[in-house]
């Protein structure tokens, strides 16, 4: 029983990290049609900035950790906004080139991060509470899992409220469905592109700080590792669907944890889930129906 609870909550924690990356990927693809292979770079920068802040102000205290979280998210948002403005926007409506640019950016940033922070993983620590465990139905669950789950739920609720109750949210929801018609209503949809990239980058940056706590280290490849599963989650959830991404994150991460523990084939389970969804429902669980 305790193992089941532990695997379940740990899986939810991993799913939370997947969601923080996948939410941005999904919104960006839904609105702009861009598969952003550089999204992992936003997460990694957030993680490294969080690490630097923790070194500077001491992230073993809650205020220091909070500053690391905020600055990590801001770093992700900043690099995402710059990427959209400088690299993606000039290639508007040239999707192949946009994808190639994001692939290139993803590779270049890994090399850049290795140049700055080295090739070895850097082990980190946060507030003491995060290193401890909490007993849930007999299972000693690491506290950082709860933090990741709480952050992902907060991001999901925040994004849903933003999309539902703001003018920009309305534009993004409409743009995901029919970008050309949004433009034909007199709305400069390109502003929403930058905004969506920025929001996605912030979520990824936040995910970076939390992922470094979850795994206990930060490295130049942290984003790339999570990006693969985030893409799987994005496709399973349905491109452009935020709630689909949240649902898929749980449906991928929890079985992945169980399969890893009992069979050692967690990654294979994620890929098989992707294959199954592509065969049965190619548009994803909550995506628009495929043509």
């Amino acid at each position, binding site marked *: 029983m305790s193992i089941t609870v532990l695997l379940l909550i740990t899986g939810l924690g991993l799913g939370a990290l997947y969601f923080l990356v996948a939410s941005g990927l999904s919104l960006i693809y839904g609105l702009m049609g861009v598969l952003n292979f550089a999204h992992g770079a936003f997460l990694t920068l957030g993680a490294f900035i969080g690490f630097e802040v923790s070194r500077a102000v001491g992230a073993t205290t809650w205020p220091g950790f909070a500053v690391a979280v905020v600055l990590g998210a801001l770093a992700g948002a900043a690099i995402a906004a710059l990427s959209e403005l400088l690299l993606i926007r000039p290639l508007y409506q040239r999707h192949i080139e946009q994808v190639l640019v994001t692939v290139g950016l993803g590779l270049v940033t890994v090399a850049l991060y290795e140049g700055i922070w080295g090739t070895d993983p850097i082990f980190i620590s946060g507030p003491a509470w995060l290193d401890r465990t909490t007993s849930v139905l007999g299972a000693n669950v690491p506290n950082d899992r709860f933090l990741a789950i709480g952050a992902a739920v907060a991001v999901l609720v925040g994004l849903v409220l933003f999309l539902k109750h703001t003018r920009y949210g309305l534009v993004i929801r409409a743009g995901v469905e*029919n970008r050309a018609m949004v433009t034909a209503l007199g709305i400069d949809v390109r502003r929403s592109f930058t905004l969506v990239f920025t929001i996605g980058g912030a979520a990824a940056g936040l995910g970076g700080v939390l992922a470094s706590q979850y795994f206990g280290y930060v490295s130049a490849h942290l984003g790339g590792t999570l990006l693969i599963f985030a893409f799987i989650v994005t496709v399973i959830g349905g491109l452009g669907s935020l709630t689909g991404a949240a649902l898929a994150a749980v449906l991928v991460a929890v079985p992945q944890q169980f399969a890893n523990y009992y069979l050692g084939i967690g990654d294979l389970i994620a890929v098989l889930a992707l294959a199954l969804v592509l065969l049965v429902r190619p548009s994803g669980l909550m995506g628009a129906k495929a043509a």
Partner: protein
Amino acid sequence: MSAVLQVEHLSASIGGQQVVEDVSFSVPATGVTAVLGRNGVGKTSTIKAILGLVERSGTVLLDGEPIDREPTHRIVQRGVGYVPEDREVFTALTVEENLRLAVRDREPRRELVEALFPDLVRRSAQRAGTLSGGQQQMLSMARALLNRNRLLLVDEPTKGLAPKIVTELATALQEAARTVPVLLVEQNLQVIEQLAQDVVVIDGGRVVHTGPAAELLGDEAAVRRYLGVHAEQPPTARRSDDDAPGAQPPTARAAEEARP
């Protein structure tokens, strides 16, 4: 009479294929100007080219000012309302959200829209994707009428709709045309007869005739030649995508479909 829109040597292409070729015409500052022609001759592409929704070359002047190099959203912001073919409402948004998204003016004409389409008021919380074809068309038109435009581009508003809805939409367009000039793509000759003062006939991507609507519709030979249909042709029963079944008035499309 002064022209609100002048189109000079407009050409357009989609995916590298030319769909509009050297089209020139003007739209008077009042009334309805209809763009006619058989299926696939470039009517919708002409409207899209004016709006910058497809690749285009040539000159387009709105009240004498060039708009042919501006992006679509700026053209619309200058006061060009657009009712697209196939409605293109945002199906995942509610009726109210669709309307809210379309508002550009500080004081949108909510009262006008509510008076013309009271059904939309009752359905404001309903998802647009669950509306019937006729209701979606009303919503699409309402989006354009919310703002005080200098010109309205309306593309096949009665396509595939039941006669009752066609009548309602034609009345709404007639009402709208009192305050804004309309460039209307339409295949339903009864609607043309009811609304249009002038016509522009397009064939093979080129303008082949311009002049008063009454003059064209009164010339049966010209109607048959340009549109492939008799102006007095009895109604053709066609299946509409609206709930109410019924017969359709004569359309150039019906004549096209009836051809061997």
